[in-house]
């Protein structure tokens, strides 16, 4: 079972790299290619895209079920992923429409909920502590451009 998972990892990597490489080439050829002597903007990216595709193919071909390196295959931690990524994006959104204080509170609160060991109360307390510390350090201390509150 473990060897199967390792095999899949390499295959998935290969597909991912090939898709990326082809996409880079497809977009790259829309820029001026130029000649080897006078390269255009598209030359190097296209070469890189081709290289990436080739490496992807090589990884796919050599994918072997042997267990090399430290493959720790644990199930994906969806809750952690959702909360951490959500935390960063909520900082962006609330930074735009709310200001530093709400952005800090919500992003820390959401991110903290990603850990199973944190209760809602712990997360809220941590967020509150960082709101205070963050406002003091960044707004009053370092004069961050982001206002504490911004409506709209």
């Amino acid at each position, binding site marked *: 079972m473990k060897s199967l998972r390792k095999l899949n*990892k390499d295959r998935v*990597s290969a597909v*991912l*790299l090939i898709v990326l490489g082809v996409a*880079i080439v497809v*977009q790259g050829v829309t*820029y*001026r290619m130029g*000649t*080897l*002597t006078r*390269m*255009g*903007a*598209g*030359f*190097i*990216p296209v070469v*890189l*895209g081709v290289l*990436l595709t080739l*490496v992807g193919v*090589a*990884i796919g071909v050599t994918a*072997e*079920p*042997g267990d*090399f*390196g430290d*493959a720790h295959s*644990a199930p994906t*931690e969806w809750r*952690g*992923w959702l909360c*951490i*990524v959500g*935390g*960063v*994006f909520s*900082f*962006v959104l609330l*930074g*735009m429409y709310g200001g530093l204080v709400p952005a*800090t509170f919500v*992003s*820390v*609160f959401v*991110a*903290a909920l990603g*850990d*199973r*060991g*944190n209760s809602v109360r*712990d*997360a809220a307390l*941590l967020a509150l502590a*960082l709101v205070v510390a963050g406002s003091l350090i960044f707004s009053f201390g370092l004069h*961050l*451009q*982001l206002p504490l509150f911004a409506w709209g």
Partner: protein
Amino acid sequence: MQHALLDLWYGFGVALQPSNLMWSVFGILIGNLIGVLPGMGPLTTISMLLPLTYVIPPVPAILMLAGIFYGSMYGGAIGAILLNLPSHPPHAVTCIDGYPMTQRGRGGAALGIAMMSSFFAASVGILMMVFLSPVLEAVAFKFGPAEISSIMMLGLLAGATMSRGSPLKGVAMTVLGLFVGAIGTDVISGTARYTFGINELSDGVDLAALSLGLFGIADFLVTVNRKEIKANEAKVRMRDMRPTRLEMKQAFFPMLRGTAVGALFGAMPGTGPTITTFIAYALERKISKTPEAFGKGAIAGVAAPEAAAHSKTQVDFIPTMSLGIPGDAVMALLLGALVIKGIQPGPQLISEHPDIFWGLIASFWIGNVLLMVLNVPLIGVWVRMLQVPYRLLYPSALFFIAVGVYSTHNSLFDVSEVAVFGIVGAVFLALDFPAAPLVLGYVLGPLLEENFRRAMLLSRGELSVFVTRPISAWIIAACALLIAAQLYAYARRLRKVRPLLAEELLAE
């Protein structure tokens, strides 16, 4: 010789200027502090403070970043020895013998030995930097665009294949990094590449956003709910840190050998500190009269890898500063910071910016002395810091990352870049790709492209220029050798694995 000493004297003058000294000490303290925190390595720390360097002059900026780096390496050893927690991969080896020593109640002595070895090795590394850099610089002056591109290719290739894990995956990440470096306005033609009409992307991807995504957020994503960090009631006081005379004796030669291993590998571009520490450890176990003691708290198993990591770190600065070829991702970040400050890394750096180069060297010494002095009385504080649980740590770090990246260009778009690279990084980490080569590729990408295009322009499109110019030919030969060695290793593994596999299938 005398010249180097005079330069060094000048360097001390630069490093001891109050404002430079202040930033350097600040970097060391922050690095040490964050390095102690579980799960935070020098890469995360440097990335987090990268935004700060945008607002201070280049000399203190680079002194601060370097301070963070070796400060966090000192800090990392504490977590490795007392908690069996390698916050920075090179310390993984230190755990093997350091933690058993803690269990035996000699954790303090292990820390003391680790610090002495680090200090000794760093001093040797610094001396090598002082005397070797000018020599290398003299050679580097003969470099044209062709030589610079080929040595960059060698550095990238070495960085990609010599890290742990699959060399092909390392190459893939390097190429991807080169591509990410190409995003934005092409410097020669002015064409906006891969920006898809997003204005914020025309200046390219932000270095701080990229590295914080890859080494910060991606790390949280991979670590959250996975690592059980037990609060350990290790009590280490100052007087526990003095090793016994026997321990000193046992550690002395391993320390010398570790330093030598580190210095040797430091000169090779692309070999990361992790692999260096593993080699130093393996060497000690091989030549030891009591190999069975290793893994159960042998002091040599702490001294050698710690010494190797520190001499390697210092020697790593030689190719980074004199050739502009970073040895690993940390060096790549430092170079990236220089580029942001408008300083072109490369052979001309030492002569054009002697304040940066010699100031940096002098500050290493000051910094290492300070670290020795600081860490002894502060050990109690560090032990308490180690007990901060990860569940409170990473949301706080996430906030500092977000604010830090925002403040570089006052742009929330950069913050969303962090999230994107966090996801990308975590996906690749989950697929067993190394993240460090991507940053190496990103930093070197634009430099490589510029030099490569210039070399092609000068040679009228003749690719053969890379093998007809003698220095470049040697470097290309080294590249070919690296690839050949990888192919050979692969072929050998293949022969070994196939029969094994058949057996495994039969057994099931």
